[in-house]
C-alpha cells in the first residue's frame, strides 16, 4: 500500500470518529470501511498516536476500548474535508458524462470539489464509451417523483423520432449503452429505451404509482419473443461470443471448419447488421424466409435504395 493510501485512510478515521456519536465507532465498522484486518487497524491507531504539536502541547488520542475505537479530546477532531484532487477529477468526469444540471455542478464545486477543478473545463483524462444523453437527470427526477412523460424516441428502425407516452421506472446499463426502463402506456407493456436515442422529454401533469422493473433478463425476453435462427460462421470466429440469445453451438454438418450457431433473435435488423458486418463469413441457414429477406435488403442497400 502506498504512503498516500495510508494517509487517506488515517484522515478518514479522524473524520469518521469526529462525526460519530461520542466520537466512538465499532472496530468492525472501521475494519469494513477501510477493508483492513484487525492488526492493520491497530497499525493505524499507532500511526495516529504519533500526531503531536510539541510547541502547543496538543496530541491526538485514539485508542481501542473493548470493541470500539475512541477519539479523545479536541485536538484531532476534524471537520469533513473536501474531496481529494483525484476524487474531484472523477466527480467532474461523471458530471460531464451524465450531463448533470450546471447549477448542481456549481453547488458541488462551492461545497465539495477541490479548488481549481471545474466540472466542465477539465483536461479530458477520463472517458467512457457509454453515452447517457442530455435527459438522464430529468428522467431520474421523473422516476423519483412518479411523473408520466412524453418522450421523442428514434428506435433503430425509425426514420424519425416518434412520440411515446411512458411511465419511467428505472435505469439499466449494459456495456456501452444506458437504458431507461419504462412502461409504454399505449402498448401497455414494459419497454427499454436507449438514453442516447431520446431527443426530447416532456413531463406531463399525471402522477403515477410506483412500479418495479420486471426481473426479466435479455435472455428471458428473447426466450419469450425471439425467433430461433441458425447461422453458420468460421470456427475461429468470435463474432457471436457477445450475443445474448445463443441456444446452441455445434460443428457444421457440411464443413468441420465452420460452426452452426442457433440464436434467438427478436429484431431482424439486428441480425442483418451482424451478418453484413461479417462480410460473407457469416451465413443465415434457417429460416429460409430470413435469408431471402436479407438478400433483398443487401441488394437494396448496395443500390442506395434503403433510406437511412
Amino acid at each position: 500500500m502506498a504512503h498516500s493510501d495510508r494517509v487517506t485512510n488515517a484522515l478518514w478515521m479522524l473524520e469518521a470518529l469526529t462525526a460519530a456519536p461520542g466520537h466512538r465507532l465499532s472496530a468492525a465498522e472501521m475494519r469494513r470501511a477501510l477493508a483492513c484486518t484487525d492488526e492493520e487497524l491497530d497499525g493505524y491507531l499507532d500511526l495516529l498516536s504519533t500526531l503531536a504539536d510539541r510547541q502547543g502541547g496538543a496530541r491526538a488520542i485514539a485508542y481501542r476500548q473493548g470493541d470500539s475505537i475512541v477519539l479523545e479530546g479536541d485536538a484531532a477532531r476534524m471537520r469533513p474535508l473536501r474531496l481529494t484532487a483525484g476524487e474531484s477529477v472523477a466527480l467532474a468526469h461523471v458530471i460531464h458524462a451524465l450531463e448533470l444540471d450546471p447549477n448542481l455542478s456549481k453547488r458541488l464545486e462551492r461545497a465539495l470539489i477541490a479548488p481549481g477543478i471545474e466540472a466542465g473545463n477539465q483536461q479530458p483524462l477520463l472517458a467512457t464509451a457509454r453515452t447517457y444523453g442530455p435527459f438522464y437527470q430529468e428522467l431520474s427526477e421523473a422516476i423519483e417523483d412518479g411523473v408520466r412523460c412524453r418522450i421523442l424516441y428514434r428506435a433503430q428502425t425509425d426514420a424519425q423520432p416518434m412520440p411515446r407516452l411512458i411511465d419511467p421506472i428505472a435505469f439499466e446499463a449494459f456495456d456501452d449503452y444506458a437504458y431507461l426502463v419504462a412502461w409504454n402506456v399505449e402498448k401497455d407493456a414494459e419497454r427499454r429505451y436507449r438514453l442516447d436515442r431520446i431527443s426530447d422529454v416532456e413531463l406531463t401533469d399525471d402522477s403515477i404509482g410506483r412500479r418495479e422493473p420486471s426481473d426479466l433478463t435479455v435472455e428471458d425476453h428473447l426466450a419469450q419473443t425471439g425467433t430461433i435462427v441458425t447461422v453458420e460462421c468460421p470456427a475461429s470466429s468470435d463474432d457471436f461470443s457477445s450475443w445474448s440469445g445463443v441456444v446452441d453451438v455445434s460443428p457444421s454438418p457440411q464443413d468441420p471448419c465452420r460452426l452452426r450457431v442457433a440464436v434467438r433473435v427478436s429484431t431482424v435488423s439486428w441480425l442483418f447488421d451482424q451478418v453484413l458486418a461479417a462480410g460473407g463469413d457469416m451465413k443465415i441457414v434457417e429460416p429460409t424466409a430470413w435469408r431471402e429477406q436479407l438478400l433483398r435488403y443487401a441488394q437494396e442497400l448496395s443500390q442506395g435504395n434503403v433510406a437511412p
Partner: protein
Amino acid sequence: MPSYDEAQAIAGDTSAQRLLNLFFIFNASTRALSTEEIVSDSDLGYGSPQRDSDLRKFRRDRAKLAEQGIQIVEAKPLGAAESEESYWKLDRENTFATGGIVTRGDAQTLAAAIDEYLEGQATPLGRPLRSVRDKALELAEGSTPQTRDEQTANAFDPILDALWSAFATHKKITFSYRNARGEASKRSLAIYGIFSHEGCAYVTGLDDASQSIRTFRTDRIEKVWRPKGTYNIPNTFSIKDYVFLPFDFGEGESVQAQFSLPASMPRAAVLACTHGRGEVALAEAGSWQWTIEVRDIDAAASFALSHAREGLRPVAPQAFVDAWKRMIDKVVEAHGA
C-alpha cells in the same frame, strides 16, 4: 504482504507520519507558521543538516497534502515586508467541505448518478466515486461516515485501486500483463488517462518499454508493484483520442474517411456511434458528416455495415465505398444469389 507486516508498515510509515503531523499542527494552530519553524522541526520529520533538502521536502509535502484535498498556503502577517520569510497556514475554506450548499436532494441525485455510472463496469474510478458519493451524502444529511455499506467496502479491488492511486498521485506503476495472445510481460506505465469501453476498463499512458503511448486492459493486469517516480501529463493529451474503434488497428497508413448519419439522429446517438472521435458536423444536405482517420478500410466498411440500420453510410474516399460494396457482394454471394 501478511497482515502483521502491513500493520507494522502502517505504524512505522514515516512519510505518512510526517504528512499527517504537518496537517495536524496546521489544523491545531491559530496562527501562521514560518518556514523556519517547519523545516527546523526534527519532531515533525525535518530538521536535517541540509536545510535546502528540508525546504524541498516541505514543498513536496504541501503538494502531497493538496492531493488529499488539504491546502497549506502562504500567508504573510499584516504589515510584513516583502523580504521577510514566508509564513504558512491551512486554507480552511478550500480544505474543509462547506455545509448548507449541497442539499439532500442534490446528494441523492449525485449518489444515484454515480451508482448508475458504475453499474456493470469494473473501473478504477469505483473507489474514488464511492468515496464522493459517501461524502456528498454525509455533508447533506449530516450522517456519519461509518454509514459506508458492506457493498462499498467489498467493492474494492486491489489492482484497480492501485491503478487509481498511481494515476491520482501521478506516480509510475509497474505491473505484469498478459495480452490477448496470452503473452506475459512486465510493464512500467505513467498513466495519463483511464476509459471504459464495452464493460472493460483501460489505462493509457507512456509505456517505459516501448517509449510510446500504449493502452492496457485492466482485467489483463495480473499483479502490481508499489508506484514510484513522478511524471507530468502532457497538456495536449486527451483520453478521447484513445477510446478505440474497430478500424483503428492496421498495418498500413491511415486515411481520412467520411461517413454519414441521418440528421434525424439525436446528437447523443451520434456521440454513442462515433465515441466522440473525429469531427462531426451537420451538413447542408441534411445529414451528419463524420470525418475520422481510419487505419483499416475493410474494418471501417464492416463497422458501417454493423450500424447500417441506423443509417451509417460510407461517403469517401471511393476505396472505402468500394470496400463497403464488396462486403455486401460477398454476403449476397455467400447466400447463393
